[in-house]
C-alpha cells in the first residue's frame, strides 16, 4: 500500500524491538469476540483505479463552468485566480497543524491576523475572529453570543434570512433553552420586523442582501434594537456585495456574520466554506472561535499567537463560549490571498461587474411576458415571479443546458405562495452569451 512505508521486514524488526510476537498482541485489549476480521469493502486500489471511480461520479454532475450558470442563494460561482489555489496547496499551509506552537507557525498566524483585519475592514467592525465553519453556523453562534451578552433568550429572525440558516438557528437555539421567533418568508421585502422587537428580545437577525436579493436598510432596525437593549446581528451570504454596499458596521450592527465562500473558495457542493464573524471590541470576550493576536517574542520581535483562549473549550471545558475547536483555516487562507490580490480597487470593480451583470439580466428577464422582478434594490441576485411552477421551469431549462437559479420552493418547500418564485444570481463569470442563452431558453420554455 503506497501510503504505508513499512516493508514486512521493517514490521518484523519493530515487533521484535517492542518484544511481542505478533501484531495481534498489540490489540489484546480489544475483547476477542469483538475483533473484526475483514470488512465487507473492496480491497486497495491504485491511483488509476481511484481516478476512474471518482471521475465517473464527477462526470455525472454538471459543472458550473460548463454551462450558463445562475445559481446562488447562499453560494456563488466566482472566478478564483490560479495563484490562490496554488498557494493553498503548498505543503506548509495545507499540511500544517493548528498553530498552537506559535514559534513554528508564524506563517499561518500572520495570515489569520491579516484575515481578521480584512474582515474587520470589510464589515466595518472593530474585531473579527479567525473564521467559523460557514455562514449558517456563524449565525447560530452569533445568536448564542447575543444571548450571553444580553442575558435574554429570544431571537427574532427576519423573513429575508436564508431558510437553511434559519433552520440551523431553530435547531440548536431551542435546545440551548432559547426562543426563536422567525418571521414568515419575505420575498417582497415588506416585513415590519420592528414590530417584533421588544424588551425580551436578545437579538434581531437580518440578512442583507436578503435571500431574495433585497438590500435591507439596517440602520432603523439597529436603532430599534438598541432602544430596547437588543443587538442587531447582520448576516450576508455574498461577501462580494460588501465591495459596493454600505458595510453593516456603518449601519449599526453589533455582530456581523456571513459566508466568505465567494472569495477564494470553490462551490464544492456546499462545503467547505468559510464563516466570517465580526463584532465590536467590547464584546470580544464573548466571541466564539479562534482569535489571533499580536505580541512579541523573547527577543522583542513582533509575532502572532492564538489568544483569548480562556474562552475556548480546551481550557474552559463546559464553561466555554462555544464548543468550536477547528475553524476553516485553509478556506480563510484562500479568502485572504484572493482578497489581497483584489485589494479595494479590485474588489470594488468586481462588485460593480457583478452588479452590472445582474442588472442587465434582471432587465432582460423581466422584459419577458409573464415574468416579474420582485426587487427594487439588489446586488448580484434577485427574485422573479414566473408564470408557472419555478421548479418545473428550472428543470426544463436544465434540458436546454442552462442552470437558471434556485426555485424558492427548494428552500421553502410546501409554501404555495412561493412556488412560482425563482432566485437568480449573476456574477462576473457570466458572459453576454450566457445571459442571452438564459433569456432565449426561458423565452422558449414560457412560449
Amino acid at each position: 500500500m503506497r501510503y504505508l512505508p513499512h516493508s514486512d521486514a521493517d514490521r518484523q524488526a519493530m515487533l521484535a524491538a517492542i518484544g511481542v510476537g505478533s501484531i495481534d498482541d498489540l490489540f489484546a485489549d480489544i475483547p476477542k469476540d469483538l475483533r473484526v476480521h475483514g470488512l465487507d469493502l473492496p480491497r486497495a486500489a491504485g491511483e488509476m483505479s481511484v481516478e476512474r471511480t471518482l471521475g465517473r461520479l464527477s462526470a455525472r454532475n454538471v459543472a458550473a463552468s460548463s454551462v450558463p450558470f445562475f445559481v446562488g442563494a447562499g453560494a456563488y460561482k466566482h472566478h478564483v485566480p490560479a495563484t490562490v489555489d496554488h498557494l493553498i496547496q503548498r505543503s506548509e499551509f495545507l499540511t500544517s497543524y493548528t498553530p498552537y506552537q506559535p514559534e513554528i507557525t508564524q506563517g499561518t498566524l500572520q495570515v489569520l491576523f491579516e484575515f481578521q483585519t480584512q474582515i474587520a475592514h470589510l464589515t466595518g467592525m472593530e474585531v473579527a475572529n479567525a473564521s467559523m465553519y460557514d455562514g449558517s453556523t456563524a449565525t447560530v453562534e452569533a445568536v448564542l453570543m447575543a444571548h450571553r451578552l444580553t442575558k435574554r433568550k429570544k431571537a427574532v429572525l427576519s423573513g429575508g434570512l436564508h431558510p437553511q440558516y434559519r433552520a440551523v438557528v431553530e435547531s440548536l437555539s431551542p435546545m440551548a433553552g432559547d426562543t426563536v421567533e422567525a418571521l414568515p418568508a419575505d420575498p417582497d421585502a415588506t416585513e415590519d420586523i420592528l414590530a417584533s422587537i421588544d424588551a425580551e428580545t436578545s437579538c434581531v437577525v437580518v440578512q442583507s442582501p436578503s435571500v431574495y436579493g433585497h438590500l435591507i436598510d439596517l440602520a432603523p432596525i439597529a436603532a430599534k434594537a438598541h432602544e430596547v437593549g437588543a443587538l442587531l446581528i447582520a448576516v450576508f451570504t455574498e461577501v462580494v456585495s460588501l465591495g459596493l454596499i454600505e458595510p453593516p458596521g456603518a449601519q449599526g450592527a453589533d455582530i456581523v456574520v456571513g459566508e466568505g465562500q465567494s472569495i477564494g473558495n470553490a462551490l464544492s457542493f456546499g462545503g467547505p466554506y468559510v464563516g466570517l464573524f465580526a463584532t465590536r471590541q467590547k464584546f470580544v470576550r464573548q466571541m466564539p472561535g479562534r482569535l489571533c493576536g499580536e505580541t512579541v517574542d523573547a527577543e522583542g520581535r513582533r509575532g502572532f499567537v492564538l489568544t483569548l483562549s480562556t474562552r475556548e473549550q480546551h481550557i474552559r471545558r463546559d464553561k466555554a463560549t462555544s464548543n468550536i475547536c477547528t475553524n476553516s483555516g485553509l478556506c480563510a487562507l484562500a479568502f485572504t490571498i484572493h482578497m489581497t490580490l483584489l485589494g479595494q480597487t479590485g474588489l470594488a470593480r468586481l462588485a460593480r461587474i457583478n452588479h452590472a451583470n445582474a442588472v442587465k439580466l434582471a432587465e432582460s428577464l423581466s422584459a419577458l411576458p409573464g415574468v416579474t422582478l420582485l426587487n427594487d434594490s439588489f446586488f448580484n441576485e434577485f427574485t422573479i415571479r414566473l408564470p408557472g411552477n419555478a421548479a418545473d421551469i428550472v428543470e426544463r431549462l436544465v434540458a436546454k443546458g442552462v442552470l437558471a437559479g434556485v426555485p424558492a420552493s427548494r428552500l421553502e418547500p410546501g409554501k404555495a405562495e412561493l412556488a412560482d418564485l425563482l432566485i437568480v444570481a449573476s456574477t462576473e463569470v457570466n458572459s453576454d452569451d450566457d445571459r442571452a442563452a438564459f433569456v432565449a431558453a426561458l423565452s422558449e420554455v414560457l412560449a
Partner: protein
Amino acid sequence: IEEALLFEVGRDDVTGVDLDEPAEFTPRLGKLARQQPIDLPGLSEPETMRHYVRLSQKNYSIDSGLYPLGSCTMKHNPRLNEKMARLPGIGDVHPLQPLSTVGGAVELMAELGRWLLEMTGMTSVALSPKAGAHGELCGMMAIKAAIAAKGETRNIVLVPESAHGTNPATAALIGFKVVTVPARADGTVDPEAVKALLSPDVAAIMLTNPNTCGLFERDVVEIAAAIHAAGAYFYCDGANFNAIVGKAKVGELGVDAMHINLHKTFSTPHGGGGPGAGPVVLSERLAAFAPLPFIRMEGNDPVLVESEAALKPGETPFGRMTAFHGQMGMFVRALSYMLSHGSDGLQQASEDAVLNANYVRAGLRDLMSQPSGDRTCMHEVLFDDTFLEGSGVSTLDFAKAMIDEGYHPMTMYFPLVVHGAMLIEPTESESKASLDLFIATLRDLVMKAKAGDLERFEQAPRYAPRRRLDETRAARSPKLKWEKPEPWAEAAAAE
C-alpha cells in the same frame, strides 16, 4: 527573514486581478451604495505570491517533518485526494443545482456513508457536521431529541476526566449538566464508577475509545450495557477511531453515536486549523433522529432528503446542523483515501499506527516515565513528567526543545489526568527510519535534561522563526487587527 504585513506593503490603487470596468449601467443599490472607503490595500500577483510563499516558509508541516501529536493525528495527506477534490464535477458544483444535475455527488455521499457504516457497524450516518466538535454537537442533539421524543427530561451527561474539552463544552452548550467520571490510575474508566453515577436523570455518557491515554477501554461493553440499562445513551468521541478501523466495530461495542474526524482518520488535510468534517454514525436507537439533509437509499438509488416536506414515516430528524449538505470537499478526499486503502489497507493502517506507537514506547521506556507502567498502548503512547523530576525542565521546556531538533512538539499537558503529560502519536505514515531518528533525538534530549543542561531547554526554541512568544501580553491587551501607525509613531519609526 522578516515578512511585513500586507497592510504595510500594499497600496490602495494596486490590484493583482485584471477586470474590465463594466459598461455604463443604472445601479440598483438604492440608498445603500457604499459611502465608507473599504480600506484594503492590494498587492500585484508577484508580490502576493512572494508574500504568502515566504509566510508559508515559517510553518512546520507534515510534509516536512513528523508531528507526534497525540489525539490530533497528523498523517500523510495524499495529493491524489486534492486532485480528486478539484474534479470539475466535484469542486465546481453548486449545492442548490437541480438534483437532476448532481447525481454523482449524491452517489458519492451515499458511498461515503456506506463505507463509514460498514467500518463502524452502525445504522445511519449524518454527513453534514462541519468538524469533529460539530459532530459531537450533532450526536448530542440527536440524543437530546431522542430523549424528548420519549417524553423524558434527563439532563445529566457523564464525562470522564480524561475527555477532550469539546465533550463537556458540547454537552453544556445544549443545556446538559456535566458530571465528571473519575479515572482509574491508568486513565481508563471504571464501570463501577459509572454505575455509581447512573440515575434516571442521566442522558448519556461521552467516552473516548481508545481513550486519550492511548488505551483501549477494556470494559467498554460493560459500561455500554450499564448505560443502556439506565435508559441513557452512549456517545463515543471518535477522535481515536483511527486506531481500530478494521479491528473493532463501535456498533458492536454498544455505541449509540460517534463522530468521525475525517481529517484524523481519513487524512483530509488539517490546513493550519481546518476545515474539518465530522460525520456522525448513529445506532438503531438514534438513527431516526439524524438531521437534514440525509441520504435515503431507495433500492440502489440514493436520494438526498433536504427538507421536512420530503420525509417518510419514521424519519424524525431533529433539524439541521448547517446550510447545504456538509463538507463535500472533505467527503471526496476521505473517500479517495478509503478507496485507495481498501479494506485490507485500512486494517493495515490501524495496525501500523499501533505498531509505530509501541515502537516509540519501546524506544523510550527506559528513559521516560509512563503513568500506568510499561504496557501495550494503542496508536499513541503517554508519558508523564516524572522522569524530569528534579531536572528543572518542564514538559513545556522539553517540548520547546524538540523544535530546535527539527520536530513539532508532542501534545502536552493533555490528558489532564496525568501530570505534565506528553502524548505521542506517530501515525502509520512514519517509516522505521523516521521513528529511529525521532527516538534517538528524544533520548538525547532526555539525557541532556537529566544532565541539567538547562539553557538548552529554558531558552528553547532558538532555531525557529521566533523565540517563545509573550502570550500573556497578547491576552491582556488584545491586538487583533492591524492598525495604521499613528503619525507620531510613523515619525518615530522614520528616525
